[in-house]
């Protein structure tokens, strides 16, 4: 086969490239380039018309200069001229220049499109190929407008050459990705699916990518691709290694096409047709069997190609999650790879096993590999492999092995790479909570976390340990003793001071009987840390001190002395000063009784959704909620959305609300009805951005704090959140003056890992149904991002509870008997019918919950007033559960029809 010689065809270009390579300095290079640019410019401007060859040569030189990193501001027209040449080499350079250099808004686009059009119509397969590649490479909207109709025709035309079909398929894919609206489905779609049967495997390879993308967006239209893909796959995997000739790679038949077909099948559930399903199972078994056969070659290419297909087959098996036999076989195969000498295979096996761990069929099989995985954590040299081992331990964790896994993770944490410490801390915290049988173990684990990696313990983690200690009285004494002992260390982490301060402030009395931890000893211990701490921690400690005043009257004067000192009363920080002044005053003016009431032990935190999920899981077994989903929810709902522990009844100064959960968290929520009964939480999350909310409402006014968190390590640029509000809506809920909109603009640059905050003031002018949309635009990594989410501002936010007696309730109920005033909905329960949860939801909805009003104690009734600027609307509600039928009947009566309707709609979604 003849080789290509250096720069053949264009001697001038080769000479120029040599010159540049011989330049001894950057300056010399720039000088040489400038000389060349001047030369080319004069040639282009010269009187003599250039021949095609020269034009090609100069355009190619310009391209080379551009690729070296220099700006090029001329030559575009000459490049466009080359497109209409009849010589392949000239046309090729023209198209290359355009693909690399011409951006989509260029004025030349019309000329370029014209040239492409001619080439597409030329019936010359080489020219058609060049034109299609250019469209695929540029993929601009203008090109989509011009060619989205033509390309499908070329793709399915009977007389199109195979190589052109390949290009057309992927060209169409590019246009569909850029401008799906311009690529309407049509007669061509069914013919595209049949390309899976094409004789030419290159055509099938290209078409499979196109079909996969189309099927993801339009699963119904492309359903027939399933059986075709299965039969194509079956023909490949059962073929002898020589059958496919050109498409056999190191004795593996068509590995890339097999992978693509297996990915296409992952767009769909298992085939319904038993024959197709049987054939697919056979294919997957064959692939698993081949993995056990002796290799046909010792070359790594052979095993890589074979294993590429194997891993994709395993992905499909996991995706279907329906064949226990295949899942267990897949797990055994991966188990062998865990000890393979190739690092790549060990890495991929750990990664793939992670998803297997969440299937009920293979969870137990995955668990048998625990020792190998722990060993990987200790011995792997590549940090990314160790990280996969951590992920897998997390995924395989359950009650039976939690203690062992948490212990191993803690010990790994001592030496873990800084880049993954925070993630490990969160994982340990979640596992410790989730599988804590013994809460003393949980408290020990979290304190260990703080000791080993205090800097990486985020606020959610230490908030959570406090919430749990407060909610479980069996662990409070132990927690107080343990934090007291931990605080003895001369250099302990500030997070430990926070946890210790809070817990001793609440439960220090439980250990005060021991002279070694008497009130004064406790106080002195905490106060010895005070001056080394940051302002928020000091604020927290001041609250602990005032709590001590209540718990231990014997240290009152000592504490008053401390509060009275100049460093407190005249502290430059306003929060600290205010606390010192208020607490000192409180300790002097309040009677013991009042003090005891004000500084009473914190009430238990409400149990959150995660415990409901856990209950659901206990009831229905692990099949309904897999571990992975469960923990994902916990990450977002539980760790983030919980109430922040406020040390006392003063302004809560301890930290901001939702910070980050894990990186790579999938998008969980986007508005909907999730926020109807709650005001705080994560509104939106994807791989890049997290949006948290904290809002408060009073009568017809509200204020919403929006927190935007950049989850990546890269800056977001031009970050612009806009509130889009239809006019009539604005008049309904935002009030007339525009400044009521978003009050504080946000900085257009959000640093990696940073969080910015924005405030929206809201006024409910009259009742409404629609909510405004929050649109966020920004640039990330050179790409433009656009996110829209509905802000959860619903009518019930302006609901104020009203208490009333049974008699009053039914009297008003009767007064509102006009048919327009009542709206009723009968619906099936979507959540377990738990009385306490239902009560909490009705209260969260904003209504008062009226006890002993309804003659039937199983029913719930509520009352309240919707406040708008113009009027107040009284509302009564009644919810009648039918446990046997798992149904509810909800009745709303208000003086306004639209209000009854909207409230009924909102509340019905909650049960």
């Amino acid at each position, binding site marked *: 086969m003849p080789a290509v010689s250096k720069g053949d065809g264009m001697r001038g270009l080769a000479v120029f490239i040599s010159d540049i390579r011989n330049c001894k300095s950057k300056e010399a290079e720039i000088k040489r380039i400038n000389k060349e640019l001047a030369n080319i410019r004069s040639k282009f401007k010269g009187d003599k018309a250039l021949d095609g060859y020269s034009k090609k040569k100069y355009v190619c030189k310009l391209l080379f200069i551009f690729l070296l990193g220099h700006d090029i501001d001329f030559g575009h027209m000459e490049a466009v001229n080359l497109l209409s040449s009849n010589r392949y080499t000239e046309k090729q350079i023209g198209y290359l220049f355009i693909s690399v250099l011409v951006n989509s808004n260029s004025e030349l686009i019309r000329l370029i499109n014209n040239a492409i059009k001619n080439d597409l119509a030329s019936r010359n397969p*080489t020219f058609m190929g060049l034109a299609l590649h250019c469209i695929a490479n540029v993929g601009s909207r203008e090109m989509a407008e011009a060619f989205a109709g033509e390309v499908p025709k070329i793709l399915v035309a009977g007389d199109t050459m195979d190589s052109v079909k390949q*290009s057309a398929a992927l060209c169409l894919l590019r246009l569909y990705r850029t401008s799906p609206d311009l690529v309407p489905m049509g007669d061509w779609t069914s013919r595209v699916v049949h390309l899976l049967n094409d004789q030419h495997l290159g055509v099938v390879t290209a078409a499979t990518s196109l079909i996969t993308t189309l099927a993801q967006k339009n699963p119904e239209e492309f359903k027939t691709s399933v059986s075709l893909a299965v039969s194509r796959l079956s023909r490949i995997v059962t073929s002898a290694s020589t059958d496919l000739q*050109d498409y056999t790679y190191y004795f593996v038949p068509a590995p890339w096409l097999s992978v693509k077909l297996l990915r296409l099948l992952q767009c769909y559930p298992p085939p319904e047709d038993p024959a197709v399903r049987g054939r697919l199972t056979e294919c997957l078994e064959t692939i698993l069997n081949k993995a056990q056969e002796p290799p046909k070659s010792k070359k790594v290419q052979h095993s890589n190609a074979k294993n*590429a297909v194997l*891993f994709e087959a395993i992905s499909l098996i996991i995706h279907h999650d329906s064949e226990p036999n295949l899942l267990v076989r897949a797990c055994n195969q991966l188990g062998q790879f865990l000890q393979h000498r190739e690092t790549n295979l060990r890495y991929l096996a750990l990664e793939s096993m992670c998803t297997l761990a969440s299937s009920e069929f293979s969870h137990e099989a995955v668990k048998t590999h625990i020792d190998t995985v722990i060993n990987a954590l200790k011995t792997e040299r590549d940090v990314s492999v160790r990280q996969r081992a951590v992920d897998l331990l997390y995924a395989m964790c359950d009650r039976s092995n939690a203690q062992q896994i948490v212990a191993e993770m803690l010990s790994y944490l001592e030496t873990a790479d800084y880049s993954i410490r925070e993630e490990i801390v969160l994982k340990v915290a979640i596992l410790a909570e989730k599988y804590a049988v013994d809460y003393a173990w949980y408290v020990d684990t979290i304190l260990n976390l703080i000791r080993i990696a205090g800097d990486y313990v985020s606020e959610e983690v230490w908030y959570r340990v406090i919430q749990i200690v407060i909610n479980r009285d069996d662990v409070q004494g132990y927690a107080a003793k343990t934090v007291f002992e931990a605080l003895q260390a001369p250099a302990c982490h500030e997070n430990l001071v926070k946890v210790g301060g809070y817990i001793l402030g609440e439960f220090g009395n439980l250990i005060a009987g021991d002279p070694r931890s008497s009130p004064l000893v406790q106080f002195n211990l905490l106060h010895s840390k005070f001056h080394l701490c940051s302002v928020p921690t000091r604020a927290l400690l001041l609250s602990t001190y005032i709590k001590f005043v209540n718990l231990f009257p014997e240290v009152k004067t000592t504490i008053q002395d401390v509060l009275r000192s100049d460093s407190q009363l005249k502290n430059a920080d306003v929060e600290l000063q205010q606390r010192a002044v208020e607490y000192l005053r409180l300790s002097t003016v309040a009677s013991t009784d009042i003090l005891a009431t004000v500084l009473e032990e914190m009430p238990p935190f409400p149990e959150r959704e995660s415990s409901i999920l856990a209950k659901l899981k206990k009831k229905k077994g692990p099949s309904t909620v897999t571990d992975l989903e469960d923990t994902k929810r916990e990450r977002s709902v539980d760790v983030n959305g919980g109430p922040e522990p406020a040390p006392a009844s003063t302004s809560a100064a301890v930290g901001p609300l939702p910070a980050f959960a894990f990186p790579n968290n999938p998008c969980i929520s986007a508005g909907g009805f999730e926020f109807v009964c709650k005001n705080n939480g994560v509104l939106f999350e994807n791989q890049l951005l997290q949006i948290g909310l904290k809002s408060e409402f009073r009568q017809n006014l509200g204020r919403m704090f929006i927190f935007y968190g950049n989850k*990546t390590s890269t800056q977001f640029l031009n970050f612009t959140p806009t509130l889009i509000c239809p006019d009539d809506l604005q008049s309904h809920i935002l009030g007339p003056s525009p400044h009521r909109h978003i009050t504080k603009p946000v900085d257009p640059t959000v640093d990696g890992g940073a969080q910015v905050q924005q405030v929206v003031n809201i006024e409910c002018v009259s009742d409404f149904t629609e909510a405004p949309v929050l649109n966020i635009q920004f640039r990330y990594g050179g790409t433009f991002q656009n*996110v829209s989410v509905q802000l959860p501002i619903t009518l019930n936010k302006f609901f104020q509870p009203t208490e009333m007696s049974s008699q009053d309730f039914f009297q008003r109920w009767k007064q509102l008997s006009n048919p327009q005033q009542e709206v009723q909905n009968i619906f099936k329960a979507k959540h377990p019918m738990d009385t306490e949860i239902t009560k909490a939801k009705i209260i969260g909805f904003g209504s008062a919950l009226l006890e002993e009003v309804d003659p039937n104690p199983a029913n719930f009734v509520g009352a309240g007033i919707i406040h708008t600027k113009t009027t107040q609307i009284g509302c009564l509600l009644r919810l009648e559960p039918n446990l046997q039928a798992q149904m509810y009947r909800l009745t709303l009566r208000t003086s306004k029809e639209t209000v009854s309707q909207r409230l009924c709609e909102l509340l019905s979604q909650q049960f």
Partner: protein
Amino acid sequence: GVLEGPGTECAIRFILIQNRAGKTRLAKWYMQFDDDEKQKLIEEVHAVVTVRDAKHTNFVEFRNFKIIYRRYAGLYFCICVDVNDNNLAYLEAIHNFVEVLNEYFHNVCELDLVFNFYKVYTVVDEMFLAGEIRETSQTKVLKQLLMLQSLE
């Protein structure tokens, strides 16, 4: 919106060939990036890939993507794909591409890629298009390349 989720974008985001000193020998982009961003990506890829040794995997997590790479003498061939794309398939796609270059340029060396940069783009387009694998048969690709060569 172009929110990156699995499957909604092309598989391959870019292909880079760099030497050990960080000089780019090929950059093929399948996503819109501005020039500054491209330069930044080139530098970042070089930084993460060159510190790894033979005991490491051929895969590196990279922003929200991953880089599949293989080193041939002084050249790093890197493909950036979605996190849930098939690692080994792209690792061998690199090798398949290198074997084609080797055949086409008869024992390819770094200088061939420098002097024939415009031909390398043609080879890439034959084998990868729109961020997807277009053709995998070395015989078919080489036949087509020789046919085009004859048109010069």
